[in-house]
C-alpha cells in the first residue's frame, strides 16, 4: 500500500487567547450537525473506545475540545478525519450522546468545499469511488469498487487471495444490479456535487 505517512500537525501551539476566541464554530456545529459541544463532560469515554483512536492525531475528546476552542484550521487539516471509520462507537458510548461521527462527516464535507487536501488521499479516493457507485447505480457495487480502488492506487494484487474465497461463499457478487429509481438518487448528487479532482 502506498500509504503516505501524514505530516505531523504543527506541534507548536502558541498560547491560545481564550478570551479572544468566539464560539462561531461551536454554533456552526450545533446548527449543521445538531451537536452541542457544551454538553461534553470531558470524560474521554469516546476516545478510550475509538476503533482507530490509536492512530488518531486528535482523539474524539480532543476534537470536541478543538471545536470549543474554535480551531477550524486544525480540525480541517487533522489526519483523524481520514482515519476515522465512522463506526460511531464514540456516539454510542458518550454519556451526553454527542455525535462525534456526525461532526467528522461534516468536517470532511467542509474539506471538500474548501479544497483542503486530505492527509490520506487513498481514503478520500475510497469515499469518492463508493459515492460514485451510489451515484451510478444507487448502491455500492463491491467487486467493482475493490477493483477500481486497487487499480487507481496501483495495488493490483491487494486482497487477491481472499476475493475468490468470498466469491465461492457467496459474499462477493461480481454483478451488482442497479436500483429502479436511480434518477432520484442522481438528483441528490446533482444538488450536492462532489469535488472531482483528487
Amino acid at each position, binding site marked *: 500500500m502506498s500509504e503516505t505517512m501524514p505530516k505531523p500537525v504543527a506541534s507548536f*501551539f502558541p498560547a*491560545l*487567547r*481564550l*478570551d479572544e476566541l468566539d*464560539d462561531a464554530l461551536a454554533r456552526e456545529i450545533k446548527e449543521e450537525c445538531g451537536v452541542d459541544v457544551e454538553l461534553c463532560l470531558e470524560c474521554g469515554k469516546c476516545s478510550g473506545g475509538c476503533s482507530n483512536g490509536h492512530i488518531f492525531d486528535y482523539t474524539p*475528546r480532543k476534537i470536541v475540545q478543538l471545536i470549543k476552542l474554535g480551531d477550524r484550521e486544525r480540525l480541517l487539516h487533522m489526519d483523524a478525519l481520514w482515519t476515522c471509520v465512522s463506526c460511531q462507537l464514540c456516539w454510542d458510548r458518550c454519556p451526553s450522546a454527542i455525535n462525534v461521527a456526525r461532526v467528522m462527516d461534516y468536517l470532511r464535507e467542509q474539506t471538500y468545499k474548501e479544497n483542503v487536501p486530505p492527509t490520506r488521499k487513498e481514503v478520500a479516493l475510497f469515499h469518492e469511488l463508493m459515492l460514485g457507485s451510489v451515484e451510478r447505480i444507487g448502491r455500492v457495487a463491491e467487486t467493482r469498487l475493490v477493483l477500481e480502488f486497487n487499480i487507481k492506487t496501483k495495488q493490483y494484487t491487494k486482497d487477491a487471495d481472499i476475493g475468490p474465497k468470498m466469491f465461492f461463499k457467496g459474499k462477493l457478487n461480481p454483478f451488482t444490479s442497479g436500483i429502479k429509481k436511480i434518477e432520484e438518487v442522481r438528483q441528490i448528487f446533482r444538488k450536492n456535487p462532489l469535488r472531482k479532482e483528487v
Partner: protein
Amino acid sequence: MSDRAEKTALVIGGGIAGLEAAITIAGAGHQVILVEKSPQLGGTTRELYSSFPHWENPAELLQGKIDEAQKTGVQVKTGFEVISSQKQATGYQVVLEGPGQKREELAVDAVVVATGFELFDVSAYGEYGYGSYPGVVNTLEFEARLREWARGEGKEAPPQTVAFIKCVGSRDRSKGYPYCSKICCMITAKQAGLVKELWPDSKCYVFYMDYRAAGKGYEEFVRSVIEEKHVRYTRGRPAKILPEDGRLLIRTEDTLMGVPVEIRADMVVLAAAMQPGPGTREMSRIFDLNTDQYGFLEPLSGQAARVGERVFAAGGCIFPVENQGALQQGAAAGAGVVALFNQAR
C-alpha cells in the same frame, strides 16, 4: 414538664447552623441562649447573595429562621462572646462578655458550638496578586459585589470578562491545605452563573481541576451553568496573573489539550479555601474539645454532632458546609441536646 423547662442550652454562633440548633432545642420546650459575637445574626449566610442549587435568596431563609427562633423563645444575645467556662457535674458555668466588656455568668446544661468557618487568606499566593492587583477578589468579596450590581449600586463599571480560579488554598500542600473545601465548586458555579445572568454578553471562565458536585441537584446545577448560561470551564490551575493595561492577564494550561492558554479578564475571583476561624479555636480550647489537625471540631467516633460529653457541634466549625448541610447539622446537634435533656429527666 416543669422539670424539663429548667434545662438550659447554650448555642454559640448565630449562623444558620446555630439558629437551627437553637430552634430545635427551644421547640422541644427547653431554654436556649444563643450568643453571637457580631451585632447581627446570620453568620456567613448573611453575606450571600444567592444560593445553590435553586438560586434562592439566602436572606429569606435566614429571616425565616430568625423569626422562628423568636417564636420558639430563643434568647438571643448578639455582641456577646464566650470567654471562659468551668465544667460542672451536669453542665458548664460559662462567662460571657458583651458590649462594653460587660460580663455575665450563667449555668448551662449543654452547649452547641456553631462558630462557622472563615476564608483562607489568599494573599498567600503571590502569583495571583490578591491585595496588590485591583480586580482580584475572594469568594465573599465577590458575593458582596454581586449583590451591589444586582441592586444597581455598583460604583464601578460591570466587568466584561470575569475569571474564577478554584482551589486557592485547597488541595495545596504548599501554600494552603491538603483538603478539598467541598463547597467552593458549587459557589463558583453559582457566582459564574450569576455574572452571565446579570450580563449575558459578558465572558465568564472557570479554571478547574475537576468540579465536585456531590449533592442533590448539584451536578445538574453545574451543568446548567455550563450548558445554559454558557460559562466556559477550562481545565487547569492558573500559574500566574499579570496586570496588563489595567486588565488582568491569566496564564494557564488547558490540560485537556496540553496547550498554553491566556485570558485577559477585568476581574478574577479566587475561590478561597475555608478554614476554622479564631472562634472555633477558642471554643475548642475553652470547652476542651476534640479537633482535627486543622483545628476543625471533630465529632466523637460514630456521633453525628457530639464533640464532648455535653457539647455538640454543627456547621462550618466541623468542616466547610453549605446552607442545607448546616441546617441538617444544626438539627442533629439540637436533637442531640434534646435527647440528653430527656435522658437526664
